[in-house]
């Protein structure tokens, strides 16, 4: 049986770190803060690994099926009998897997940050934010209740907001964090309404009950939900679709991805943690969590998911080829890889062999976390060295940054899907799943993997080869042990993670799913990857004008891609022009002039009248007498004629 205290401690330790450093860090723990945070996280990492071991090898598997445990569930807020927000811990394959990923990556980032942000003014604040983020992410992962996941969802959002805006005096950073928060918030609106619909039709907020009620065709909850339709789609479909919008927002799926590239304004380790490995895959995790419901909705929300994922994957890949800011390149590649995971879910089905996509998606999530974190941290090391994000300031660094160079190369090979690195296996399964279900998506994926290889190596060559580096005077080392250790560890896992028989642990229905390889199948993608790599080699190995020519030959297409297909501009138009000028300004004006004006008008009218009637008081006794008589006559007439 799961060990509640151990599991509960996993998120609580980072929380403790957050409180400790947040309250006292600034004054008392200025120097020790980094260490405290790291140690606490180390502890929870160990706990997570322990939990994972226990679950997968001791108690988790009952009769060949990985069970779903809810060892702890406290009522937090009861809306009405049966419908309540519970704070619980859920233990099942994906949550345990995520526990490991989150804690491990977070630990790496903590260690790395010790070096990366050394001598920072707000060192404690930074680590407290990291703690907050890790806590909320773990809470999200462990959520046993759909509203609980929403709560931590929001918390994750705000901690990412804080971390992106860590350099709060940089206007671009402020803009970026606002953008990130608002865009995801907009998506969360969908999520919220989705929750309302699902919980109302399910009559509960608890995941297990909800899924059970909404997926068993004979339960009346399912019947009513399926029966009550709006705009041709059943309540169930609407709920699932809206929930997915939330997920798409967090996972930067097209067209809600615009915040992700800007989010790179944050410190690089943060990007590695939040915007590569953990938070951005929350959307995938959410869909996986509610997968049974998604898988039975008609018309299939899964199809939407699949297409959204595929489109995001390819668009992001194309844009990535044109960017020169290395972090932005990585950001788009992240988006593209998450696209993979999404459509992998989209092409999957619930249960058995058909559930391959699900497993593949989770697998890719796992490996991607490793190598993408590695890439970011490597990029961080580079940036730390050259003090710039831009490719043109780099080149020929392989001598100066040997370790970074090697690890980065491994990561590139991994993401490019070159065997035997991790990316190869996971991507392989995804392609297989797509191949089995949806050819169109399969081809898109195939092309994308080629492009992926190309832009990753474009990046690699531009950083480490190309023009020789003009070392500007100082000749410092590449960041020291604390920064190199994470790189190495991650490199190892990025290289080795692929050999984990993932299907045995994680599958849509908890049953074993052995993944079998057909070499014939994997020829195409690998070949494409190699082609991509060699194109990159040919274009960028030496400094030359081929890329420029190439770009100009593409003409408009290149320009469009370079400008991210002008999606930002569209958003800008909607917000600035429509929201502010067409709604906000009129509303403010209306309030100031019409509503307020009415109130003042009443006053003015009163005074006007009182000015108008002042003549009555003429100051002449005789006039007064006339009014007197008038009154008398009026009364007499009234009572004698009218009221008789």
């Amino acid at each position: 049986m799961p060990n509640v205290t151990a599991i509960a401690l996993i998120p609580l330790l980072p929380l403790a770190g957050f409180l400790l450093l947040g309250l006292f860090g600034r004054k008392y723990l200025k120097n020790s803060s980094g260490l405290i945070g790291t140690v606490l996280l180390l502890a929870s990492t160990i706990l997570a690994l322990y939990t994972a071991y226990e679950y997968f090898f001791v108690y988790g598997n009952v009769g060949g099926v990985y069970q779903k445990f809810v060892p702890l569930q406290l009522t937090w807020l009861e809306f009405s009998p049966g419908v309540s927000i519970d704070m619980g811990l859920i233990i099942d394959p994906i949550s345990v897997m995520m526990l490991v990923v989150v804690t491990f990556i977070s630990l790496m980032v903590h260690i790395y940050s010790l070096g990366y942000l050394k001598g920072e003014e707000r060192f404690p604040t930074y680590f407290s934010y990291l703690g907050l983020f890790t806590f909320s992410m773990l809470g999200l992962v462990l959520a046993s209740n759909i509203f609980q996941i929403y709560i931590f969802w929001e918390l994750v959002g705000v901690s990412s907001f804080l971390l992106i805006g860590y350099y709060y005096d940089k206007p671009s950073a402020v803009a970026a964090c606002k953008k990130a928060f608002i865009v995801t918030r907009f998506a969360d609106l969908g999520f919220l309404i989705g929750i309302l619909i699902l919980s109302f039709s399910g009559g509960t907020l608890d995941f297990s009950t909800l899924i059970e009620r909404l997926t068993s065709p004979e339960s009346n909850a399912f019947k009513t939900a399926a029966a009550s339709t709006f705009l041709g789609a059943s309540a169930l479909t609407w709920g699932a679709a809206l929930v997915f919008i939330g997920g798409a927002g967090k996972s930067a799926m097209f067209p809600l991805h615009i915040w992700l590239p800007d989010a790179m304004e944050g410190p690089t380790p943060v990007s590695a943690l939040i915007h590569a490995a953990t938070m951005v895959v929350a959307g995938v995790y959410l869909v996986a969590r509610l997968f049974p419901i998604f898988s039975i909705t008609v018309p299939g929300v899964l199809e939407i998911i699949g297409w959204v994922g595929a489109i995001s994957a390819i668009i992001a890949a194309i844009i990535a080829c044109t960017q020169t800011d290395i972090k932005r390149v990585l950001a788009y590649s992240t988006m593209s890889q998450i696209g993979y995971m999404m459509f992998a879910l989209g092409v999957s089905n619930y249960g058995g062999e058909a559930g391959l996509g699900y497993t593949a998606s989770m697998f890719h999530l796992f490996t991607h976390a490793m190598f993408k974190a590695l890439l970011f941290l490597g990029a961080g090391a580079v940036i730390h060295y050259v003090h710039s994000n831009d490719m043109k300031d780099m080149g020929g660094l392989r001598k100066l940054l040997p370790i970074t160079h090697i690890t980065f190369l491994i990561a590139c090979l991994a993401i490019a899907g070159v065997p035997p690195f991790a990316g190869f296996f996971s991507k392989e399964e995804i392609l297989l799943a797509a191949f089995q279900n949806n050819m169109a998506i399969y081809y898109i994926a195939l092309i994308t993997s080629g492009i992926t290889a190309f832009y990753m190596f474009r990046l690699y060559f531009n950083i480490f080869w190309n023009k020789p580096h003009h070392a500007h005077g100082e000749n410092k080392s590449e960041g020291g042990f604390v920064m190199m250790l994470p790189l190495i560890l991650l490199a190892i896992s990025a290289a080795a993670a692929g050999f984990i028989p993932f299907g045995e642990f994680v599958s849509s229905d908890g049953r074993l799913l052995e993944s079998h390889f057909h070499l014939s199948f994997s020829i195409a993608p690998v070949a494409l990857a190699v082609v991509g790599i060699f194109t990159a080699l040919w274009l960028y190995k030496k400094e030359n004008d081929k890329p420029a020519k190439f770009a100009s030959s593409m003409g408009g297409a290149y320009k469009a891609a370079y400008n991210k297909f002008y999606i930002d501009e569209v958003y800008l138009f909607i917000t600035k022009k429509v929201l502010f000028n067409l709604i906000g300004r009129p509303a403010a004006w209306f309030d100031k002039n019409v509503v307020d004006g009415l109130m003042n008008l009443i006053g003015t009218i009163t005074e006007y009248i009182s000015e108008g009637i002042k003549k009555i008081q003429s100051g002449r006794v005789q006039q007064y007498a006339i009014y007197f008589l008038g009154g008398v006559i009026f009364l007499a007439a009234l009572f004698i004629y009218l009221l008789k």
Partner: protein
Amino acid sequence: MNEFFTLMKSELVITAIIFLLLFIKIGKGMKNDSLLSLVQALLLINFIVGFFFNKEGNLFGDMFYTSSLIVFQKNILSLGVYLISLLCSDWLKKTEHLPEFFILMLSALLGMFLMISSGNLLIFYLSLELATIPVAAMANFDLHKKRSSEGAMKMILSSAFSSGILLFGISLIYGITGTLSFAAIPGQLDGSTLQILGFVFLVAAFAFKLSIVPFHLWTADVYEGSPVAVTAFLSVISKGSIAFIFITALYKVFAPMQDVWYMMLVIFAIITMVIGNLFAIRQQNIKRFLAFSSIAQVGFILVGMSSGSNIGITAVVYFILIYTFSNLAAFGVAAVIAEQTGKENIDDYKGLYKTNPFLCWILALALFSLAGIPPTAGFFGKLFLITAGATKASFTFIIIAALNMIISLYYYLRVIRAAFMDKNESPIGKIKLGIAVKLGLIICAAGILLVGLFSWIYDYINSLS
């Protein structure tokens, strides 16, 4: 014989004081200060005496009639007179004809007493004139001020005119019913046209004295023209007395015509409140301002009166008690300021708080009480008036009444704003308050704050009516 003394005791006391003053006048006379304090003492005695050996009964064949309620009303009036003598002592000290002033004021008071307890149209008419003519003379007491004499002229002429109308009405009623006694008239009434005509003429006179729109036009001019003491007397004492007798007239004498006068009261109430408020909004002179505000207050009194039941009587009497305190407090402040600085405009009050916080708080209390805002007693007074008016449950009427409270609040706030908030480089200087004035103001403030919370007062009045 003995009964004669107990029943008419207040009248007798007043008469005694009047004669005493006469002798003093005829005799070698007294210094103003000592005379003033003497009179204040006497008035206090008169007020206290009012509480003892009260009996219910009537004299001279129903011509004079008194009850504990009437006694209570008389006490309110004598309290009011006492307060005036305190609050205006600055001005009184300066007048060279102090005894005459008090003789006039007290004979007017005597007239009101008789009027309240009159049981016969003849006595009513006589006492009404007794209550009016001296006041006209008082209004002219600032002999050298043009405005004073103008105000007095307007008052005497218009009141003479109104009494002419009144008499015509009385003569008609006499012609129809053949009797003048309040007790006998109701039996004779059958609502014939001529009766209504007579009734309307009669009511017109009441309306004139109560300054109900459109019979109110003399009010503001007279108030502005006459000295503050007289204005206070007019706005509180004579209004109160007329209101009391008006109730008796409507509820007792013209009871058979209730549906007629209910209608009339509603109309009166509405236009009086509205016109009074609208005029008050744009007044600059504080006395004139208070004149119109008191007109509006009369409108509220009418709302209460329209109920036509005991609750109405109680509400009106209760309100007038509170109104005495509130209005006299306001007038008291106006009086000291006018007397010591000669300033009577609201704009002159700007920045008053800097120099005279005490006066300002009193003023604020008084005005909030007039506006009917808790914790002041005015809140209760107004609320009960409206409650009484609501017994007939005609919503529009009540809503109009309630909405008028907004306008009135608006102009009361104008004064408070001037006193508390507005900047002024040359505010009114520090004002020295004599013992008497201070005492008067404190009594008023106490009344404003406590009468509302001492709910037994209301219940007591209710038990009387």
